[in-house]
């Protein structure tokens, strides 16, 4: 009996659950970074939401693209091995996207801080106060 359909279904369920879990983690914890960068909560929430949408698009896109399996699945062992291969790929892509997001947050935060840095040197003198 070809177990391909149960394997596909298991793959989709596992992959989608993992994607949702990582996305929610990013959404919840990334908010703090964004509030720090944008100083406004409504703007931070807006950007956060937009980033999460992008995250879902890329990751669910990969999950669906990577679904197709070459041969038949004729045993449970075959099913587990096929599943582990596919889910492994999904986890790696999720991991990459996760770190990429952190990198983007960190860069945004660094650039925002730069804007508020005072001059690194003291002046040599001052103008007399205006008359």
């Amino acid at each position: 009996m070809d177990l391909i359909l149960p394997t596909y279904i298991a793959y989709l369920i596992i992959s989608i659950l993992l994607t949702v879990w990582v996305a929610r983690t990013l959404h919840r914890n990334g908010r703090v970074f964004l509030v720090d960068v944008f100083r406004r909560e409504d703007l931070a929430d807006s950007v956060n939401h937009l980033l999460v949408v992008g995250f879902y698009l890329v990751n669910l896109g990969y999950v669906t693209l990577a679904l197709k399996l070459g041969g038949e699945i004729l045993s449970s062992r075959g099913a587990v091995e096929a599943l582990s291969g596919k889910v492994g790929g999904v986890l790696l892509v999720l991991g990459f996207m996760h770190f990429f997001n952190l990198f983007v947050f960190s860069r945004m935060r660094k650039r925002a801080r730069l804007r508020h840095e005072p001059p690194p040197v003291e002046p040599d003198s001052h103008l007399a106060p205006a008359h």
Partner: protein
Amino acid sequence: MRRLTILYDADCALCRRARAWLGRQSQYVPLVFVAAGGEEARGLFPGLDHDASLAEITVIADTGEIYRGPKAWIICLWALRRHRSTALAMRTPGAWWAAEAFIRQVSKNRNRFA
């Protein structure tokens, strides 16, 4: 600090090129360029030592701070989006010492670079 006025040596080719380059850069703080020792400079800053501003580049903030020579250069970099982090690296004494020495050398020989 909302504006920086840069008094530069208009007779020196290197200085004019530097002025053009600074003017092209994306700025956090707007830069305004005025020829050092000229009528406009004397009119804008009556209390300033204009002879000193001919010897060394002088930058004056709208809040009244005056920076000369190497410090003026660091403030210019600080005002630029792409180079503010370089300017902030000058907080390290070693980096500042090297930058200051380099700027003074170039400035002393500026008329050799055309």
